[in-house]
Each structure stands twice: as C-alpha cells, then as structure tokens.
C-alpha cells in the first residue's frame, strides 16, 4: 500500500469516532422527535416540528475540516510522509467523509419523511425530493464546508501571532466597513452580495440545484488549490 492510502486510512480512522458520536446524537434526536410526533399527532393543541439536521451536518463537517490538519500532519511527518502525499490523502479522506455523510443524511431524510411530517434542507430550499439531486447537493455542500475548514486551519497554522490576530479580526472589520458603505450607497452592496449568492445557489434560475452543485464544486477546487499552495514546504509548528 502506498503512503497516500496509508495516510487516508489514518485520516478516516481519526474522523470515524467523532462521526459516530455525531450521528448517534442526530439519530437519537430524530427518534425522540419521531416518538413525540407520533404521540402528539392526534392532539390538536400540540405542534411538534423538526426542521431537519442538514445544517448541523454542515457545521460538523466544517469543524472536521478545522481538525483535519495540524496533529495529523505532524504525525505523518514523524513517518517522513511527503507533504504532497499527505495533501492528496487528506483530500481522499475528506471526499469519503462527505460521500458517507451525504448518503446518511439523505437516507435519514427519506426515512423520517415516511414517518413524520418532515422536510430536509434540500427539499425546503429547492422544493423537490429528487434523491440523486439531494445526494449530489449535500455532497457539494459538505465538500465546500470541509475544505473551507481545512483552509482556515492552514491559514492559522502558517501565520505567526500577529498574522493570526489580523486574520481573526479582518472578516469582522470587512463586514463592518461593508455595512457602513452599504448604508451610504443605499444598501446596494448587501443586495448585490445577496444577488450573487442567489445566482450561485441556483435560486435565481427556477431553483436549479445543479448550479449550486457546480458552485460548490468550483469553490472547493479553488480552496483545494489554495491549500496546495500553502502546504508546499510547510514547516512543523507547535
């Protein structure tokens, strides 16, 4: 087995436990909501609602992205694994994770839908329950979030103390400045940004989720490219 597969194996083992814990919690909540929903279904005064867990999965995989680099990179350096092989192994591990999570989420959505009044996030946004579309869209969304987490952790890893502070403060300063400027020019900036996001997510084109999948895909590739530039010759840091 070459080093890429060995590192992938380690990365997946490392992510496995947190993934099991996450879905144990999600499944437990789903079961609880199902029981409550069935129990109170005949009670006109009770209203049991469950808005889906797609966003929780996205947040979870974003955090997984944040945790996928530092200690694992150091461990692989102990075995003299090259940075380029670590990079590709990490991408494979993240893809596997996103695929597994997309399948679990879509499967759970469809099971829940048959038991209680329920709509997954994809169905809520795009008004369709096409399973393959849901899988692809969830996969794209998860890939985008996990790669974003990885990029942020790499930026922090490469930065010194001053840069870390700048990187942390910059988004807040940027948003505040944008809001001030937005007020000055009749809310055109935020409206413009909203318009771009509406286009990128396919809401502006008859809820075309394929546009969203494409947007997620292109963004992920760009982020992976940036990660590649950052991982080359990256030193070991505490």
């Amino acid at each position, binding site marked *: 087995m070459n080093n890429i597969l060995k590192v992938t194996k380690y990365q997946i083992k490392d992510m496995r436990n947190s993934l099991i814990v996450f879905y144990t919690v999600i499944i437990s909540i789903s079961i609880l909501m199902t029981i409550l929903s069935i129990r109170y279904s005949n009670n006109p005064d009770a209203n049991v609602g469950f808005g889906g867990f797609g966003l929780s999965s996205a947040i979870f995989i974003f955090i997984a992205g944040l945790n996928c680099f530092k200690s694992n990179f150091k461990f692989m*350096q102990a075995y003299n694994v090259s940075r380029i092989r670590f990079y590709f192994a990490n991408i494979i591990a993240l893809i596997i994770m996103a695929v597994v999570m997309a399948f679990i989420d879509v499967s759970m959505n469809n099971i829940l839908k048959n038991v209680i009044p329920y709509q997954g996030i994809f169905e809520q946004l795009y008004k369709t329950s096409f399973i393959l579309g849901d899988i692809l869209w969830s996969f794209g969304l998860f890939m985008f979030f996990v790669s974003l987490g990885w990029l942020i952790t790499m930026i922090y890893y490469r930065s010194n103390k001053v840069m870390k502070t700048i990187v942390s403060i910059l988004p807040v300063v940027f948003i505040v400045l944008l809001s001030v400027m937005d007020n000055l020019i009749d809310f055109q900036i935020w409206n413009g940004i909203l318009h771009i996001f509406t286009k990128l997510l396919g809401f502006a084109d008859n809820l075309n989720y394929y546009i969203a999948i494409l947007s997620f895909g292109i963004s992920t590739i760009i982020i992976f490219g940036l990660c590649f530039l950052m991982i080359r010759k990256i030193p070991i840091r505490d």
Partner: protein
Amino acid sequence: MNSIEVKNITKYYGNTKALDDVSITIEPNKIYGLLGRNGAGKTTLLNLLTNKIFPNKGNITLDGESIFENDKALNNIFYMMEKNLFPETMKVKEVFKWTKEFYTSFDDDYAKSLSGKFGLNINKKVKGLSTGYTSIFKAILALASNANVLLLDEPVLGLDANHRDLLYKELLTSYNERPKTIIISTHLIEEVSEVLEEAIIIKAGKILAKKSVEELLESAYTVSGEASNVDSYISGKEYIGEETMGRFKSVTVLENSSKQNKELARKLDLEFSNVELQKLFINLTN
C-alpha cells in the same frame, strides 16, 4: 547501500545563516556522532535530511536520488526528533501499530521486548510519558523500525544513567545484528564516544571536521608536568586547552600522537596521555 550526499547546503532562518555551504558524505553502515554546540546547526542538518525543512541552496541525495518530497527515499530513514510529533492521546501500542503501517519492516515483537527491558508501559498514552520515557519510546520506535538510516537527535534526553547505558548497548546490538547508518546528535560526547565510528563536528553552520573517532583522538595528545617544562616542550607547536594548577600545567598539543617527542619528554619529566573526545571537542569549538 544508503549513502547520503549533502551538497552545498545553505539554510537561513530569517537573516540568520544556520548552515553555510555544507557538503558532506554519509557513508553507509557507520555510526556517526554529530557534535556541535547549541545553535551550531546539528538539528537543522538532520531536519534537512528528512525534508522537515528545506534548504535555500544545495541538494541532498540518498543513493543518488534527491530526497525532496521523495517518499520512497525517505522511507529508508527513521528520524527520532527531539520534538514529539506523535498524537498525545494515542497509546504507545497504537503508535507501534501505525509505525508498522509506514515502516513495513518494523519489528513489533522487538519493540515490545525493548519496552519490557526499559520498563515502558505500552498501554500508556503518549502524553502520560515523562521526558525520559518519551525519549525511550521514540528510541524504541527508531530501533524497531529496521530502517536503513537512523537519525537520533538527543536520544538520551532525560534518561538516567542505567537507561542510557542500556540504550547504547541495544543500539550496538541492533547495529551488529543488522548494520545500518546511524547519526547520533548529542551533547553527552564522552559517553557516546564509545559507540561512535566517526565524528562530524559542526561549528556555526560549517563542518569543522569529519573524521573517524580514532583518527580524531590520534590527531592530538595531552602533555603535562611542571609548567616551565611544558612550555619548553610546546614551543613552536600548535596547541589548545591550556590548564594550569599551581606549578603544574597540562596542554593539548595538536599533533599526531605518533610524533610525540618521547626523548624530550623524558628529559623534561613530562607525561603524555590520550586526549578525551569531549576535551578535543570543547577546544575545537570554543
């Protein structure tokens, strides 16, 4: 084979030149001591040999193949770093298992037997190990890895005298059973000198000497006796490390021990003795 060629390596940290145009050949199946004062560039050189950092100039090859991002070449080298790179929450036995994945010749039974000899509890987590046991744990990984090249950076850090002695013995046993290239970077020169075949002395980023320990020890000798007589003997000779105690004086003469003037020494009532590697090192690097 596993011969390492370091060619014209220069490494800067900001404006500080850590290594200055270093060229050196590490021959296979020899035990080297990498000796130098703090900040001389020892760890930098070891880090460069394993791609932990990259040079500003020059290149490094293993059997003619560049080691730059070369997993195949780097898989022949096990580097015991002073820094701990292993996940702190991982148990020692789990690290053994993962080491076997990456170093397929890793001898799990040997690692466990060494753990028994050193009293290392393999069920402990890495973060639970003391400084000494962290060194032992990393040294066991290196010995059991069966890699052709072992780079040991401060392998006896925090070890008590018994464990140090045991480690040197195990290192020699492992070397005798399966010859390999070993580079030991340490400050405990006198202790390790028994184990070394060659010494590489590094000073301010430059290689000062690369000689067999025997050759180094023969390259100088100590002459001692009454101060004025010692002065007469060393007149016109190159010497280092002058030590005076009352009327008694001892000087290290930088001359091959075969050139000792025994006749003159007898007349002046002087005594010759072998120079200690540590003393020679201190004098060379001061």
